[in-house]
């Protein structure tokens, strides 16, 4: 079968599947980060430019828990989103909540500035060379799939990201809390007039979106080295993903995130030179053809 694939497309199968897997992993991060952005944008109407820094914080908190408190990966999966999410709640309470009545531009400038400050603080403290974080023992090693070796940790990242994306989607689409969220996204004032504490819901939603970024950060720690720029490198692509999927669309951000990761991986196989730009080219085409994004409501 592998020979058939090679014969058909003219590339070695391991290269193809290797890049597909890499694409899927990048896609997992795109999906989780753009999902958090979509959740936040839906309710707060703010494009959270701090998101990349919060992803980075998620990875750093995992590193600190291990280096300073001896708490390993699984503890980090639990504690890092809580800690970083809580820092998000404070940011929302102290800064972001003051801007809801003002033009979008203020939210953009504030969150961008906060992101730069956070990144700068971490660079000052930890330098920019990057800190290692080891794959937990349970997830190290690789499976021999016959046609390729699959590092277990990478498989785990894809599964875990899918789990968090689907869980988030289910909460928003199928639960009562999700109905409050959807309704408040449409018309917050009326939802509040029904007796729901919308300001608190907004704060918690921001915290949840930030916690999602932190989970992604923990997942990323063993793959990329933990360094202060890891978020800003990724987030630029994520914003392109968000534009392609359609700002604020939950399902759109998940599908587009994974899809574009795969497209990027395939581009590396067939036209390596274009792989760094393919997402931005797609973004330009989508913007021309469907400015609201593939899943956005025009």
């Amino acid at each position, binding site marked *: 079968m592998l020979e058939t694939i090679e014969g058909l497309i003219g590339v070695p199968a391991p290269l193809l599947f290797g890049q597909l897997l890499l694409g899927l992993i990048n896609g997992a991060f795109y999906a989780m980060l753009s999902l958090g952005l979509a959740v936040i944008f839906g309710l707060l109407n703010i494009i959270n430019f701090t998101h990349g820094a919060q992803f980075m914080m998620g990875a750093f908190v995992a590193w600190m828990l291990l280096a300073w408190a001896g708490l390993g990966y699984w503890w980090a999966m639990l504690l890092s989103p809580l800690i970083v999410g809580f820092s998000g709640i404070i940011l929302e309470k102290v800064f972001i909540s003051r801007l809801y009545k003002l033009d979008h531009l203020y939210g953009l400038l504030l969150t961008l500035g906060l992101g730069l400050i956070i990144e700068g603080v971490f660079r000052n403290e930890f330098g920019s060379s990057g800190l290692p974080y080891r794959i937990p023992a349970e997830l190290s090693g690789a499976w021999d799939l016959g046609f390729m070796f699959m590092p277990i940790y990478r498989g785990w990242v894809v599964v875990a990201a899918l789990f968090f994306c689907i869980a988030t989607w289910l909460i928003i689409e199928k639960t*009562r809390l999700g*109905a*409050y969220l*959807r*309704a408040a*996204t*449409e*018309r917050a*004032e*009326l*939802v*509040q*007039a*029904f*007796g*729901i*504490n*919308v300001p608190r819901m907004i704060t918690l939603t921001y915290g949840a979106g930030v916690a999602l970024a932190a989970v992604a950060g923990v997942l990323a720690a063993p793959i990329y080295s933990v360094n202060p720029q890891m978020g800003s490198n990724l987030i630029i692509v994520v914003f392109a993903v968000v534009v392609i999927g359609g700002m604020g669309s939950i399902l759109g951000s998940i599908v587009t995130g994974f899809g574009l990761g795969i497209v990027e991986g395939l581009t590396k196989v067939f036209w390596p030179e274009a792989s760094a730009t393919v997402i931005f080219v797609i973004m330009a085409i989508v913007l021309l053809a469907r400015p609201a994004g593939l899943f956005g409501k025009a």
Partner: protein
Amino acid sequence: MADTTGKPLLEVKDLEAWYGESHILHGVGIEVHPGEVVTLLGRNGAGKTTTLRAIMGLVGRRRGSIKYNDRETIGLRSDLIARAGIAYCPEERGIFASLNVTENLMLPPTVAPGGLGIDEIYKLFPNLKERANSQGTKLSGGEQQMLAIARILRTGAKLLLLDEPTEGLAPVIVQQIGAMIREIKARGFTVLLVEQNFRFAQTVADRHYVMEHGRVVDMVGNDELLTSLDRLHQYLGV
């Protein structure tokens, strides 16, 4: 007949309200007694919707006194006003497009015991059961209005603020809404109803307040309505 001698359920005094810099209400006074259906009549722009929104805490700034059940609510946030037992059905109905009919119906949380059960709701509004899984905004205008009212009957709120529930609906639907208002009155709900159409108001209400330029300028009992027609025609310009 409702008891209008005791303490009012809702007592609005010297209510002023602003949208940004625009001063819209200039000292509105209203009393609604338990079990009453009271209307606010008035021309377009008289301030009827603003009065309901001000009671609900949905205007930029408000001043004066709004007592519900003898408790001052002028300083409360709108969610706390709702929790106190006042429910609001907005003029545009406020059906959520991203929620299906059931989700729209179940959205407002219960604020007190004594609301209608879901079976009673479906008995009053059978269409809502049939269309349970439709997108809320796919319903007809009349069905959306029924949904908007049904969802606040569930919550246990005793005072309902209904903003022009008959606006833009066919006569047969208007009759259904009239019957429904009489039914909920019979069940002990208290209603403050905004209407432009006083012929409809006459079929459901105990008393009528007339608003002009952000003030209450007159009050007419339903039994005096026929003898006050000339006066009302002047206010309403019909």
